């Protein structure tokens, strides 16, 4: 899967990726990469992960033939149901994998960043389940708007630490977690939540998430006897997208559609980007340890992003997606807030499935450009929308 490695130091995807971090973090990351490489070859570890995925997380998730949505779009549409995962999103695929690694590395504490709180919840889940002390960095602004997820984390024994620096949102929570890790790596694992950041996170998170694509591949072959014409996934940092795309990368006939957040519109590029479309509208730069596509001003200051879906509200993207998009293997699409809301309502009404606002971007895009999907399409429903009800009510002034 890895398109190029610069010797043993850090995986690169074309020119993207790498390991751009303060020296203090280099060795912890290298050790993590080593442990990860080693454990992914261990049958014992793989079996432990497999059992946890099955008995705790609820895998496999179904691939559901959405008959009503199919009728509406005039093609066969299947939904990969990550909304049925424990915790309510694909996030647990990754946190479970990383926490099991951390355990084997002898770590006793987990730290993580979170924006909407989904990754924080998924980290709190594994923290409780596997007996870690768990601390979650979360921007003060996000704490305010995601009270219920804050409470879920606390219920599971995690401590939520307010981040007051910068824009006080996700990107600053990542900064703060990295700062913590720079002095705590001895006993602490930094559990990054998406397929972005420094090596080995993009590869590791992709690998843990690619269970989505492996299952989907088996399931669509069983249901239809062929590969789909397209796979559509939303992109925040890129973990659910890379997770479902990865096992199909060699199948050139499968169109891979990455839908980013268009937010309030893609015009502005001042101090604040009114969107989260780093893949489509960003430029090359370094953020959180990797060279990738980012939203930045001409001097290299990172812009604040925006999306109604907190999980897509990030000014960077995983380096592998940046590479695949540039190569043309992944097609970059944009769905704005309104399109996402449309997807949210349509899937709820048509199928009785309330998608996460993040996933609703993928659905909304499909509703707008059905012909892009081909005859047989898979859409990744990365999470459920229960967490978003207050946001949607707010958005619609209910």
């Amino acid at each position, binding site marked *: 899967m890895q398109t190029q490695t*610069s010797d043993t*130091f*850090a995986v690169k995807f074309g020119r993207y990726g*790498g*390991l*751009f*971090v*303060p*020296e*203090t973090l*280099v*060795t*912890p990351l290298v050790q993590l990469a080593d442990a990860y490489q080693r454990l992914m070859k261990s049958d014992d570890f793989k079996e432990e992960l497999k059992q946890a995925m099955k008995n705790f997380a609820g895998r496999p998730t179904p691939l559901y033939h959405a008959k009503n949505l199919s009728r509406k779009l005039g093609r066969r549409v299947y939904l990969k149901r990550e909304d049925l995962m424990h915790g309510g999103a694909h996030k647990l695929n990754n946190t479970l994998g990383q926490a099991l690694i951390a355990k084997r590395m002898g770590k006793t504490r987990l730290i993580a960043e979170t924006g909407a709180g989904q990754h924080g919840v998924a980290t709190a889940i594994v923290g409780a389940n596997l007996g870690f002390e768990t601390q979650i960095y979360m921007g003060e602004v996000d704490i305010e708007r995601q009270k219920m997820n804050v409470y879920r984390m606390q219920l599971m024994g995690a401590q939520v630490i307010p981040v007051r*620096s*910068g824009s006080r949102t996700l*990107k*600053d929570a990542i*900064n703060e977690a*990295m*700062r913590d890790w*720079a*002095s705590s*790596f001895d006993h602490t694992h930094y559990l990054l939540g998406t397929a972005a950041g420094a090596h080995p996170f993009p590869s590791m998170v992709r690998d843990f998430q690619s269970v989505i694509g492996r299952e989907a591949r088996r399931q669509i072959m069983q249901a239809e006897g062929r590969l789909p014409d397209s796979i559509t996934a939303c992109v925040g940092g890129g973990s659910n997208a890379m997770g479902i795309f990865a096992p199909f990368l060699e199948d050139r006939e499968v169109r891979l559609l990455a839908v980013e957040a268009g937010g309030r519109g893609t015009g502005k590029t001042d101090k604040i980007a009114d969107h989260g479309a780093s893949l489509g509208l960003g430029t*090359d*730069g*370094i*953020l*959180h*340890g990797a*060279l990738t596509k*980012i939203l*930045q001003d*001409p*001097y*290299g*200051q*990172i812009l604040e992003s925006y999306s109604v879906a907190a999980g897509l509200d990030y000014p960077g993207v995983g380096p592998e997606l940046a590479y695949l998009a540039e190569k043309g293997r992944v097609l970059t699409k944009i769905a704005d807030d309104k399109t996402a809301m449309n997807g949210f309502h349509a899937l709820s009404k048509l199928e009785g499935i309330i998608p996460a606002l993040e996933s609703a971007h993928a659905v909304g895009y499909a509703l707008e450009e059905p012909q892009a999907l081909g005859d047989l399409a898979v859409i990744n429903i990365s999470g459920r929308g229960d967490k978003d009800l207050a946001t949607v009510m707010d958005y619609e002034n209910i």
Partner: protein
Amino acid sequence: MKISEAFEKAPLLIVYICAGDPTPAATPQLVRRLAAAGADIIELGLPHSDPIADGPTIQAAAQRAIAAGMNTDVYFQAAAQADVPVPKVFMGYYNMVYARGLDRFAQDCARAGITGMIVPDLPPEEAGPLHKACVSSGVDLIFLAAPNTPAERLKMIEESTSGFLYLVARTGVTGARSDLLQSTHELIARVPGNKPKAVGFGISTPAQAAEVIAAGADGVIVGSVCVDLIARGEIERLEQLIREMKGAIKAVRGKGTIAS
């Protein structure tokens, strides 16, 4: 001035400030006063929106500076105006360098009289392109080593760095602390090779500075404590501190007299 020349008069006191804090206009004069007070090298920080290696003090300074209008163009103007008889060194995050273009950035440094670059989030392994640009422009590219850097890697970093080797006194981020750690001593002792080595991160008192030099360092870097005094407008106390620190390190292993 070349960094290597400065280290001929080791031990050195290296002083970090955040360019543009409190205002871009104040920076050149501030640099002059620091040099006059005894700073042997000035590290001039280019503020970044996402300074992951920095603690709260320098984060806040960066935010103030950006709000006050600091950007890379202004930075080089200010640096050029800060005409001092000691080396000026750029300190900043890789994305700021990358955004301008590596060659252009190194050339701008040279043009502004900056003779070294410290990029804390750029390990040697990723630094090939910037290294080339620095060589072309005659600018030193200074790498960092940390207490948790393994022996082999320490050797590689020492071999890669030019100007001096930046030893991170402790794991974690920048910020003043009152203690010094066993691991700092060990790191200083562990460094192979003969390049000058300066210790920074968390050093804020003359006693700490003296301890570091006594342990074998060729320079000591102070940052957060200076930024803090600037934030409070206490420039004279800063000058006083620099004088005391300089005195302390020279007392350990010096030519006996305090420079300037």
